[in-house]
């Protein structure tokens, strides 16, 4: 039970940059590849994940002393499932169009590795406030990654942003195809690695 010594800001920055769920930890790739075709989709799913991550991190952090270690994984899963049901029903009721576009992925937030992972690694060992900030950081990191992917794919694939025509033509229709998701994510990860290497080199010399 090693509680973290990081400050809240440190936790936030870790979640968004150094431990970004998609580009650095390579977790929860399915939505990153599947529905990052537009900025709007990425934004909505990102907000849903942010909500679920923060809510379940806090819940687990509150009840962490009452969970038997042997049944901790099922407990995490059921907690997440509860919050996903909440967000699923809310989105279905208030944003029916966007909900349809995201299809099965909202329900599948339950199975996103990143949320279970954070509960297992962080929330079950730390105080509520720390878990809250860790959840916010991770959720924002996911949101950031989804919006970036959506930005690249929508701009290059359709020539639009948030549905508004920006370029007036379609540079590379290939990026709007579902199959391009893999390649875009791969290239972005490579870019992040490259930035990391350059940053470390600058720090050294």
């Amino acid at each position, binding site marked *: 039970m090693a509680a973290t010594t990081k400050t809240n800001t440190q936790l936030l920055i870790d979640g968004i940059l150094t431990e970004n769920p998609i580009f650095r930890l390579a977790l929860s790739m399915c939505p990153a590849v599947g529905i990052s075709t537009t900025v709007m989709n990425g934004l909505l799913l990102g907000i849903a994940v942010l909500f679920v991550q923060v809510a379940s991190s806090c819940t687990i952090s509150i009840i962490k002393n009452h969970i038997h270690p042997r049944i901790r994984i099922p407990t995490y899963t059921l907690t997440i499932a509860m919050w996903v049901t909440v967000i699923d*029903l809310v989105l279905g009721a208030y944003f029916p169009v966007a909900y349809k576009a995201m299809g099965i992925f909202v329900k599948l937030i339950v*199975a*996103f590795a990143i949320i279970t992972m954070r509960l297992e690694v962080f929330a079950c060992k730390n105080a509520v406030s720390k878990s809250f900030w860790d959840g916010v950081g991770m959720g924002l990191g996911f949101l950031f990654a989804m919006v970036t992917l959506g930005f690249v794919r929508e701009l290059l694939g359709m020539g639009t942003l948030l549905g508004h025509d920006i370029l007036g033509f379609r540079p590379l229709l290939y990026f709007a195809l*579902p199959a391009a998701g*893999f390649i875009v994510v791969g290239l972005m990860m490579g870019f992040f*690695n490259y930035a990391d290497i350059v940053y470390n080199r600058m720090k050294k010399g």
Partner: protein
Amino acid sequence: MKNIRPFHVLVGVLLVVVLLLTGCKTRHRFVKKTAFKDTDKIEIVFAGPVDETWAKDVGGYSVYEKPDPDILLKISNVALSPDKTTVTLTFEEPLNRDQPHILTTTEIMSEGKSLGAAVLTVKKLYFGYVLSILIGAMLINNFVFTKYLGLCVFFGTSQKKTTAVGMGVTFTLVIVFACMLSWFLYQYVLKPFNLFFLEIIVFIGLVSLSVQAVDTILRKINPALFKAFGVYLVLVIANCVILAVPLILADNEYNALESFMLALGAGLGFLIALFLMSCVREKLELANVPPTFKGMPIAFVVAGLFALAFLGFSGMSIY
């Protein structure tokens, strides 16, 4: 094991048969066969001759696709065969043969007597339909390469052929087990009691239950395999496919056999994807990859190429 008697086995088999039968629609006793003909025709074969005035009346039939009960399909012509046992309905537009169609008739008149109204289901040959679900889930709609699900586990365990095959097989076992459980619970508990909003919680609960069961069994039976998987058996819960399949089953109202085939197809499709990917990644170990692309990024680019190749399957249909 001594206590199991033939009687118990018989009761078990009967239970399964009854469960399977309740999934099917009851058919009208006077109707022998329904089938699709050409692109825009449906053929109904009756057990005996029917009255011409009833049979030729276009208003006597209403046909819709099973998922859209509100949209009635327009019938342009009704033909009766000379022996008066076969009715052929011609539609204004070509029919979508992939969907089961529901055909409702007014009271069937035969030799002046009414034989009651009929609700009939028109489907493609059942065996072919079931097989197409299996092949569809395996190749055409491969969950990894065309639906982009289960990627965390896919990238995590595709480094070596041995792990990939082991993971694929375990996954197939778990998914079939979990899906049959969820199908049963959905059809016999959630649906009758109208508890649809609980489906996520129930399905994920069942999935983690089956994962725990496989975990315990594997730990005892094959410790070597158990050691090789390490954290990834637990991560099967985090594999979206295992949750997506029960949700798809619930949406499409599949019966037991169809559910089994979809689960099996999803598992085998995952196995195929893992195996293909691990073959490439073993070669990649030896290749000279630029340092920024080492590991995950290059794996993603390769998966992108696979996805493009699998795009070639799209639009294919069997039977």
